[in-house]
């Protein structure tokens, strides 16, 4: 049993592929039983999960914070919208997504080179500026980018072979909503396999090394700036893919969809799920997708107007985010994992170190949030 387990943790690529295939099976099973509304909701969960996945790599593995992943999604989404203006547009969807990722990547490199290179609050500040600036760009170039109304996204016809394949496999007609959901989830799974492998590779080890101890990492010959910029760039690319998925799901790219709130909400998802964990990113995305209705329901029941009740969801996210950092900094996944470890070891956690009276809040390894990011299988 133990030997099987250690073998399983060694064959990284195989493990990730098997998990991905299993994940896809679950996706098919769920989507085939979902109606149009549910399908679109699940597609939203997929694009939020994609963006959160990118963010969790940056924050959990490299210890940096981006407040601009919503804005990076906007870049992916507007690229998609520009490439899919009407039904006659002949760009295949896969190319559109690649272009969206490419455009976001370019912005990511530019912002990352300026800000991620440096240690300190610079990346957080620059991405915050990005989040605040991007909607204004869409408003300024009204002619090209559609101003307040935004750009409509026209989903190309579903290719024949996809329709045939879907019918052959599932025995049901593939609706457009379900198609979108499949595309979004497939993108998520492919991206997560790439991210998971990357984080287990040498690159990922470098990111972690820089996060844990920049001085030691530098002594070990790691170029700090390069490691930080590359982590941000990869993370931005995931946000670009998320933006493309958002565009085809909502069929619209408009400034109001990419407020600062979106960026901050993504951060919530990542913190709730557990920094550095892709599984956590999906859990966080699920909460972001399904929790608002519930909470808004409570609000209207309590007599709030719809608009005000809609603000209860972020209120809950924000509060939970604060509580998570104060009480369980490893998030949902980290906490579960620690409980599991404790059970299998059958003992209590190691005794707290430090009798340091000077600093009652001295970091102890069990709750420093950045040490909880081991294991990133999707």
């Amino acid at each position, binding site marked *: 049993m133990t030997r099987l387990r250690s073998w399983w943790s060694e064959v990284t690529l195989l493990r990730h592929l098997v998990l991905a295939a299993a994940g896809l099976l679950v996706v098919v099973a769920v989507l085939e039983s979902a109606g149009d509304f549910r399908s679109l909701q699940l597609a939203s969960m997929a694009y939020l999960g994609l963006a959160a996945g990118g963010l969790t790599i940056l924050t959990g593995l490299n210890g940096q914070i981006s407040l601009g992943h919503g804005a990076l999604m906007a870049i992916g989404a507007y690229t998609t919208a520009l490439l899919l203006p009407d039904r006659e547009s002949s760009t295949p969807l896969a190319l559109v997504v690649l272009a969206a990722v490419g455009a976001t990547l370019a912005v990511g490199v530019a912002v990352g080179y300026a800000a991620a290179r440096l240690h300190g609050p610079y990346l957080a500040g620059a991405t915050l500026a990005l989040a605040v600036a991007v909607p204004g760009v869409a408003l300024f170039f009204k002619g090209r980018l559609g101003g307040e109304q935004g750009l409509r996204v026209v989903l190309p016809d579903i290719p024949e072979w996809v329709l045939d394949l879907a019918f052959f496999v599932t025995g049901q007609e593939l609706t457009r909503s379900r198609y979108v959901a499949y595309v979004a989830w497939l993108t998520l799974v492919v991206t997560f396999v790439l991210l998971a492998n990357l984080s287990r590779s040498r690159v990922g080890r470098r990111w972690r090394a820089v996060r844990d101890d920049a001085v030691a990492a530098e002594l070990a010959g790691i170029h700090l700036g390069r490691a930080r910029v590359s982590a941000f760039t990869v993370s931005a690319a995931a946000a670009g893919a998320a933006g493309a998925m958002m565009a085809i799901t909502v069929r619209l790219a408009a400034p109001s969809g990419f407020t600062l709130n979106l960026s901050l909400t993504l951060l919530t998802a990542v913190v709730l799920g557990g920094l550095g964990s892709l599984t956590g990113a999906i859990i966080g995305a699920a909460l972001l997708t399904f929790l608002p209705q519930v909470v808004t329901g409570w609000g209207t029941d309590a007599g709030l107007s719809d608009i005000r009740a809609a603000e209860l969801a972020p209120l809950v996210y924000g509060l939970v985010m604060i509580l998570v950092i104060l009480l369980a900094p490893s998030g949902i996944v980290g906490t579960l994992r620690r409980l599991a470890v404790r059970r299998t070891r059958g003992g209590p956690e190691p*005794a*707290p*170190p*430090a*009798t*340091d*009276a*000077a600093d009652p809040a001295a970091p102890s390894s069990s709750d420093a949030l950045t040490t909880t990011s081991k294991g990133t299988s999707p």
Partner: protein
Amino acid sequence: MLSLRDLSTSYGPVHAVRDVSFTAQEGQITAVLGANGAGKTTLLRTISGLLRSRHGTIELDGRRIDRLSPERMPALGLAQVPEGRGVITELTVDENLRLGGLARGRVRPADLQRVYELFPALADRRAAVAHVLSGGERQMLVIGRALMSRPRMLLLDEPSLGLAPRIVTQIFGLVRSLVEDEGLSVLLVEQNARSALSIAHRGIVLNLGRVVADADADVLADDDQLRHAYLGF
């Protein structure tokens, strides 16, 4: 005056100070000697309250102080000069000294005057940012700052570290004269045992956190075996 009984302090599993007992007499210089890593700094930080002991007691004039926070030390008449001197380099010389006075409530101009007389080198640079001071000047500054709080006992952590022998002699001479002329008591933590014993009345030798010798300074200095084993001269 200051007496420790069975004092132990650890960093998690690392027991840095183990069952240390000794008494530092009033009006004397008590030297705590030992190699790098012997636990000297840990001991001093435990006394001043920056670290909490695992067990054991610390008494000042018969009153237990081992559960007090470091902020209370100046009021008790204890002034610690931390390892690495603890100059606040962003503040000016004058501001550093004034902080020492504030530790006792307010800055007395007479005290400031006296410190500048003791250390004329500082007087010339009152308004300079402490960042520009040399190592010796910094050591003078922190001793002066400690004196500003009118302490009864001075706790010094390796004042000689990184200083030229001439400066060390000068500073140690000054410490000795403060003790002789004004009745100050000093707990002097040093690796530089030879210099420390030359001014100390009593010496305590620590090794791996334990007291391995506690005797008059001249006895220690004459004990060749001990010197070779623990003091490196």
